[in-house]
């Protein structure tokens, strides 16, 4: 006798996949139709596989990734798929479960006093706490190359001793625990898997504090969309990341938040004060999502993604009136050279601005250089993607940091942190996001969710509150 169980979450049903013109030539009409039907990115089929209600240990988890492998450095995550994979080697401090909230994994968060936070690290060597504290201290510095430094803005005096990290809170910040589960603030090694060499299979880490993952090893195969989808279709892969499968899949049972947000950041001093109006009038986020973003994504009309702004958020006021006179200005748009998606979006923005009299030069740069140019303000325009925390106030902080308005954090966050009630705080953060949208030097473009398909033999796949699939929870059933 077999019973079936459908385990499925989580993608916003409003998400749509699009096609880049560059890639559409490689996609058959059948596949295009299938992809048009695809409204999910994380999906699990109904399965008759039996598990006795408990996960099974053993086997090799085969993952086909339609993208280059990301660096394990949590600060360098560039796509939700690679972020999920990076977390297998470089674990976040805790897991933010959609239903259970903060679940300790490698650290337990406590508040010995209302204005202090303490992290009790599980496992690891004696230097693990001091290494993490040093990393946080570096990230907190003004010259840090990451907007994620805003997540540490409420902390003061970070110290480490004997497997413990202590910090004081500069102001009340009820969203701190959830923020500290962000992958960017986690470790750079010691995850549920280890990678002996860059191309070798990941091996289960028997000493991982939460317990070893269920499969013995993970075999990662990278390639383009077609090759990855073919591996999945021929059952040579249990998971397909970053590409749609050849065959249409049923819609998901539960939506996942799309929190991987992409912004166009500009420097008014370089680009001119009239640029804001031009961007608002010429860059169409809906158009980008439908035609140039190849994964499930949702256009952003507000400063924060729809998953954070809620249904009550009104669209921004349209910038009406006559178009500004063409200034005949020359600008450079920087984007991450490793991301095809950013290249396609940058090309579209180039075309749109050209129509308004701007000559935009596109310049792909390595990620490290992009971060350095952003941190020093040495750019006209740049594209940046961020994984926003699933708390509107914390997400607003990261967005303000990305806009280069670190000076706003103390004022805005102090007011938001003083609201103890979670719903009221979220509502206030949404109000502030709506107010700040027009004044921050960035344009929200779209928010992405992971594009993941799983074979029926894979079980236990769920997303965390960031919308990232928790790959360390999956197991292979006997089939």
């Amino acid at each position, binding site marked *: 006798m077999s019973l*079936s169980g459908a385990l499925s979450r989580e993608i916003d049903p409003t998400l749509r996949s699009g096609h880049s013109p560059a890639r559409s030539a490689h996609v058959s009409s059948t596949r295009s139709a299938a992809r048009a039907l695809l409204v999910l990115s994380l999906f699990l089929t109904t399965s008759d596989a039996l598990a006795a209600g408990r996960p099974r240990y053993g086997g090799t988890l085969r993952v086909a990734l339609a993208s280059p492998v990301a660096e394990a450095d949590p600060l360098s995550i560039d796509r939700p798929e690679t972020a999920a994979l990076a977390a297998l080697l470089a674990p976040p401090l805790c897991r933010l479960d959609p239903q259970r909230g903060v679940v300790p994994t490698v650290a337990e968060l406590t508040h010995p006093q209302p204005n202090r936070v303490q992290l009790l690290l599980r496992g690891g060597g004696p230097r693990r706490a001091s290494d993490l504290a040093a990393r946080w201290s570096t990230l907190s510095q003004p010259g840090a190359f990451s907007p994620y430094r805003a997540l540490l803005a409420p902390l003061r005096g970070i110290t480490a001793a004997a497997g413990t990290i202590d910090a004081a809170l500069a102001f009340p910040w009820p969203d701190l625990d959830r923020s500290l589960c962000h992958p960017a603030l986690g470790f750079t090694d010691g995850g549920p898997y280890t990678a002996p060499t860059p191309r070798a299979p990941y091996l289960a880490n028997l000493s991982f504090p939460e317990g070893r993952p269920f499969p013995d090893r993970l075999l990662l195969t990278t390639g383009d969309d077609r090759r990855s989808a073919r591996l999945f279709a021929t059952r040579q892969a249990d998971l397909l990341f970053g590409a749609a499968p050849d065959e249409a899949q049923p819609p998901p049972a539960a939506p996942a938040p799309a929190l991987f947000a992409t912004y166009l950041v500009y420097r008014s001093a370089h680009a001119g004060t009239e640029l804001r109006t031009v961007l608002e009038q010429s860059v169409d986020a809906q158009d980008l999502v439908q035609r140039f973003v190849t994964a499930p994504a949702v256009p952003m009309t507000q400063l924060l993604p729809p998953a954070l702004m809620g249904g009550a958020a009104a669209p921004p006021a349209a910038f009406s009136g006559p178009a500004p006179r063409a200034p005949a200005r020359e600008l450079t748009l920087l984007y991450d050279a490793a991301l095809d998606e950013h290249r396609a979006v940058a090309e579209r923005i180039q075309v749109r601005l050209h129509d308004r009299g701007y000559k935009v030069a596109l310049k792909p740069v390595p990620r490290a250089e992009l971060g350095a140019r952003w941190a020093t303000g040495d750019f006209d325009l740049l594209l940046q993607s961020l994984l926003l925390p699933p708390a509107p106030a914390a997400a607003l902080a990261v967005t303000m940091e990305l806009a280069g308005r670190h000076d706003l954090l103390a004022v805005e966050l102090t007011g938001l942190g003083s609201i103890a009630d979670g719903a009221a705080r979220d509502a206030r953060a949404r109000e502030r996001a709506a107010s700040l949208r027009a004044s921050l030097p960035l344009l929200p473009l779209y928010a992405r969710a992971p594009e993941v398909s799983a074979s029926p033999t894979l079980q236990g796949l769920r997303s965390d509150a960031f919308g990232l699939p928790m790959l360390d929870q999956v197991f292979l059933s006997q089939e």
Partner: protein
Amino acid sequence: MSRARAGALAATALLGALLMGASGAPAPGAAVEKLALQVAGEIAGRVTEGPLAVHVSSPSPVLSRALATLIAAELSRRGLGGMVVDAPDAVIAEARARDQGARALARVNAGLERGQLVARGDLLGTWVNFWSGRSPTRPPQPAAVLEAAAEADAHALALLAAPVTAPIAVGTGGGGERPPPVKVQIASAVLAKLPSAIVALAAGDLDRDGVDEVVAVTEDEVVVMAADGRVLARHDVKGLPGASAPVRDPIAAATVVQGQVAYFHARRAKGEVLAYGGGALRVVRELEEVPLARGLLSGRWVPGENLISVDVQRWNAPGPFHSLAVFEGGRTDAVAVLPGGAGARVRGFPAAGSGEILTGIGAGTALFDVDGDGVPELATSSAAYAPEVDELRVYVDGPWGAPPKWQLAVARGRVMVAAAARLDRERAQQLLLGTWLADGTSELLVIRRVAP
């Protein structure tokens, strides 16, 4: 509608008498008391003059009397002079209420409906107009429909189960012909809610009073509860050193050996034997091996995994298993839950070897004698991982492959552990289920016979 849900509902409809689910964590008796207050409130809202008679019928005379007493008491408290009418049915109750001088009569029928303790009935005037002559006409007022419901609790189930008036079939145990089967109705209720996942369950008579106590091992502690769900003692397990290889899937083994609790959490390096007394648990000794089957066997955790292996010299087990349940009657039976939904049932454990291979069984598997005939039924949860609706199936003893005798759709959560218990002095046993909820908490359910 999913296959699982449709199947569960269909099974429930077929069985008809299966009443399932309960929620909330009421104190003992809370459901009956809540229901009585509601019914009394409805009556009081429609009647201004006493005395008022109350007649309650239900599948259980004990429950009927308890509910009638509470309703009448509440009516008296409100100054309406409540009185209880004892009558074999509602029609006779009207005449008796009139004879006793009641101005009105509330006729209530109570029972379990989908986890709710429900009362329905009517309110009628019993005063007869002198000018009606010999015709017992009813007055126009009061006249009302009564309806109230409260979430069932373990105490309500116990009241329902108490009045066993029909004979229970008793197995001969010797292989001869069995008495004809008796129709048995079973139901479930929440015995307790715990803040973390229940990873092992056991039951045994820890205080030698003839009734089992319930032992639940959670992530952090061992909790001993009385048959009504009251917590009797707690013991913190975090004092034990952690296992050298942590286990991701939370699991433990627990059993009662000669009135003492023996448990071994897979995330700990050692187990313990605990003695209960004076409202506390005392450590008797530490364990190096996993205690199983009321002390008949022991094993070891497979490092880092949710499996127990045993020495083949002790038992020719079919392989490392998740859990092992035993039933000690005329002969000792055991059932082991293996990975992948497989299992093994041994009649004459452990000498009979690896036993009969089972398929499609779940983590919540136990042997329990639901009808008191001395022969254990096999209860098992869904074999699927995280099914949309978990389902308990109960099989009578016999070759594997026959359809289940009963099926119960579990209201919420996944059944991950199970154990047999004797929570009263009846011959029949009860079944304990530990369900994991999505929010990380768990519920302890008790399944018991409620009729005949």
